């Protein structure tokens, strides 16, 4: 039995024996010929057997869920945000479906934990006791005064929290009370709150950033200066997922009304990745570890976040859609990918892609590629043709056939935009072939300097 399949068959259980299993499962076997990747994670000294944490949200709001998550194999949790007393409404969620699939995007109008604080604290203690090898981070959003923060921090540390995540991101319900995104959107207020926290906290502090700003960097810098040990992003994005065409009321529906909800799930991943990159590239914010959040659903998503600078990832929507079992494939997929690429530990690849995102004016103008259609793979759907013909550069030729037309690229006309390749339903049917205009690198600034031709297509 090789390493991968061995891991697959390990079934976790709340009982004590599982802990041994876990250690053997995720560490590097010494004498084995296949060198298995070590996917254990160390975030600010908080260890977890893998880099997959559950984000602060309903999946982490009570002992019952968290134990099930740990049994399923999750590396850690960020406990549902604790703070002042709240009251939730019904309904609370809505979603955007796409292409016959449910929940491409998800939104909610829920508040922070609506359970009594003492119960949450008791349950945190119990979870840590049962699963001491998993990360237990507690998300906090205290009332906007120093004393409230200090009291909450003390109670949570006593309960066994291993770290804190400051929720400066919740875009609804709490902002009206000067909390959540209202803090995260104002670098000065955020700085002040982090300073209060750092005075009291004896365990690592992560500050969670709101995406409801035009740049996450100012708040990020401000809280790093104030001493936060790490950053996490993103929280949800303010949104309206749609309007019901019968009631004419947007979703989610609450007695004939709705409010802006926080958007998350696969739809927000590209935005999250961009925001993550700006934090990973900034001189100051890049000094602290980052926990990546926003649309992570598979091991591939996780790897992408990590390549762009996240030390670990947090997941909410994917778990809410499919349950905790998705972590099995996340673990196996990540490990297999690392084996394939020869990475032994997470640190071997974290941040590797950060420097490849550059400024537009630094791009090489002499780089050129042209679409090529593999006629053996082509199924004659015509999608490349109509996309290029109607909306791009009329670079694809149609030769009529019954029932199948033949499509070929007009090399001279193709600008290499990728559109045809993106819409083609067949894997690797359209490839982009490199045809440099000239061998040397030349960027936009140099191009202008030399007075080279513009608007020439």
């Amino acid at each position: 039995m090789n390493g991968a399949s061995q891991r697959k068959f390990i079934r976790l259980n709340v009982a004590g024996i599982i802990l041994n299993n876990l250690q053997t499962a995720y560490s590097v076997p010494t004498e084995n010929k296949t060198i298995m990747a070590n996917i254990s994670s160390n975030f600010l000294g908080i260890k977890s057997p893998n880099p997959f944490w559950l984000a602060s949200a309903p999946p982490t709001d009570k002992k019952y869920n968290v134990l099930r998550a740990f049994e399923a194999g999750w590396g850690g949790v960020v406990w549902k945000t604790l703070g002042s007393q709240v009251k939730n409404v019904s309904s609370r969620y809505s979603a955007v479906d796409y292409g016959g699939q449910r929940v491409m995007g998800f939104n909610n109008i829920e508040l922070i934990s609506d359970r009594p604080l003492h119960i949450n604290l008791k349950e945190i203690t119990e979870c840590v006791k049962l699963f001491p090898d998993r990360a237990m981070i507690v998300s906090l959003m205290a009332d906007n005064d120093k004393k409230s923060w200090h009291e909450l921090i003390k109670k949570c540390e006593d309960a066994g929290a291993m770290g804190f995540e400051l929720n400066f991101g919740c875009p609804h319900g709490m902002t009206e009370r000067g909390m959540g995104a209202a803090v995260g959107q104002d670098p000065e207020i955020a700085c002040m709150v982090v300073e209060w926290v750092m005075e009291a906290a004896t365990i690592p502090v992560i500050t969670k950033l709101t995406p409801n700003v035009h740049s996450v960097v100012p708040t990020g810098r401000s809280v790093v200066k104030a001493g936060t040990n790490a950053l996490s992003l993103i929280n949800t994005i303010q949104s309206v997922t749609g309007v019901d065409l019968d009631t004419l009321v947007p979703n989610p529906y609450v007695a004939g009304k709705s409010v802006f909800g926080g958007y998350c799930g696969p739809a927000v991943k590209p935005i999250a990745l961009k925001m993550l990159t700006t934090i990973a590239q900034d001189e100051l914010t890049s000094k602290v570890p980052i926990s990546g959040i926003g649309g992570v659903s598979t091991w591939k998503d996780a790897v992408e976040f990590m390549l762009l600078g996240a030390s670990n990832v947090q997941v909410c929507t994917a778990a809410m859609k499919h349950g905790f079992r998705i972590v099995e494939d996340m673990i196996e997929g990540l490990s297999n990918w690392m084996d394939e690429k020869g990475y032994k530990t997470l640190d071997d690849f974290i941040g590797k892609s950060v420097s490849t995102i550059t400024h537009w004016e630094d791009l090489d103008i002499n780089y050129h590629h042209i679409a090529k259609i593999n006629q053996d793979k082509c199924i004659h759907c015509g999608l490349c043709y109509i996309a290029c013909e109607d909306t791009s550069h009329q670079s694809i030729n149609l030769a009529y056939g019954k029932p199948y037309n033949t499509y070929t690229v007009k090399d001279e006309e193709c600008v290499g935009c990728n559109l045809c390749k993106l819409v083609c339903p067949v894997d690797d049917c359209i490839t982009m072939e490199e045809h440099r205009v000239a061998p040397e690198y030349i960027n936009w600034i140099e191009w202008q300097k030399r007075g080279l031709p513009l608007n020439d297509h």
Partner: protein
Amino acid sequence: MAIQNNRLTKEQYEANFADIHPPFENKTAAQVEASRCLFCYDAPCTKSCPTHIDVPKFIKQIVTDNVKGSAHTIFTSNIMGAGCSKVCPVEKLCEGSCVFNLLDEPPIPIAKLQRYSTEKAMENNWQLFERKNSVGKKVAVVGAGPAGLSCAHVLSREGIDVTIYEKESKGGGLMTYGIAAYKVTPQFCEDEVNYITSIGGIEIKYNHELGKDITLSQLKKEFDAVYLGIGVGVARQLDIPGEKLEGVVDAIKFIYNIRANGYPSVPVGDKVAVIGMGMTAIDAATQAKRLGAKQVTMVYRRTEKEKPCTQHELDIAMLDGCEVIWLAAPQKIKGSGGKVKQLVCSVMKLGDPDASGRRSPVDTGETFTLDVDMVIKAAGQVPFEKLIKKSRLDNKNGKIVINENCATSIKGVFAGGDAVNGGKEVVDAVQAGKDGAKAILKYLAP
């Protein structure tokens, strides 16, 4: 051994003749399949539909929850879109050329999706077309089959007043009287005819037979134009000894009885031989089996490679437990007491290819004998030659000859469908009706 009706219980008949292509259970099921469609450009499926239904468009409209629009898209090209969705041999039409075949994946279930939208339209009686004000012109259509109905609908939309003369007491043509009972029900056929004619401006005169109750010259006098959509008639004679014995039946009449009179009334033998391998032969064989025949054997002169039916149809017969003997040509039917007892066949082999490239069967001189009590003839259908010749219409072995404008040799008389092509599919007849209507409109244009 005997030919006998009422072999099964009501439940058995119902189970045996249940819808062979069940519909989608619900909206989600339809949308999941519809979402798979790639929305091809200049789509191969559309090109392979004789009526050129904009398939990607109507499927996309299912995805966007615009089912009414979807039905409109279908009916615009094919007013019998509901019936076609149940009877089209899609494996050689639209679905046969769906691009997913090239990926070795199952094609989009186009017909099933077409059924989804059109069924909703019929259930809710959505009126998707408006008839223009009457332009004061009258056209007679002979035959209320797919060709005639399709022609009538297009004409009526343009404000022409249409009268259909139909020899039977029900409309739909072979849809009602010929197609296998497990594809469409009599009720559905009736509903479809009513739905098509609900646009108004179409009057159907049932039990009016051309050549008996009315003549072509009468129609020519009374109407501004005439369209002949009379289809083809009975099965071809075998011209072998014993054809007159009791127990030798014509496939078309056999199926007509099933469709017109109901399953229990139709007698069927214990051991049945079906002669031919076209769609009609398959339908006769499977339905004989489903009526309770113990053994059904199909005999065909050529090999499986030359079979005129599609593989899909042959599979239905095989799954029903019908047996097939290839390279067997009926030579004579033997009987006793006036009743069928045996079918004697010559063993054939394939000879040299003929002009069309098909290798024709040649007799090896050997024979074999099947013990049977019923022989169903399904070796092609013959046109209404007598009627057509009497009406002085230019024809080829009884098939009406038309020019590129669907016009016959008699001015003002147009024709299409099986009567012209000798027998194809419903969807071809619908297209022929559209073409005929277009030609008539041009002819009538001031």
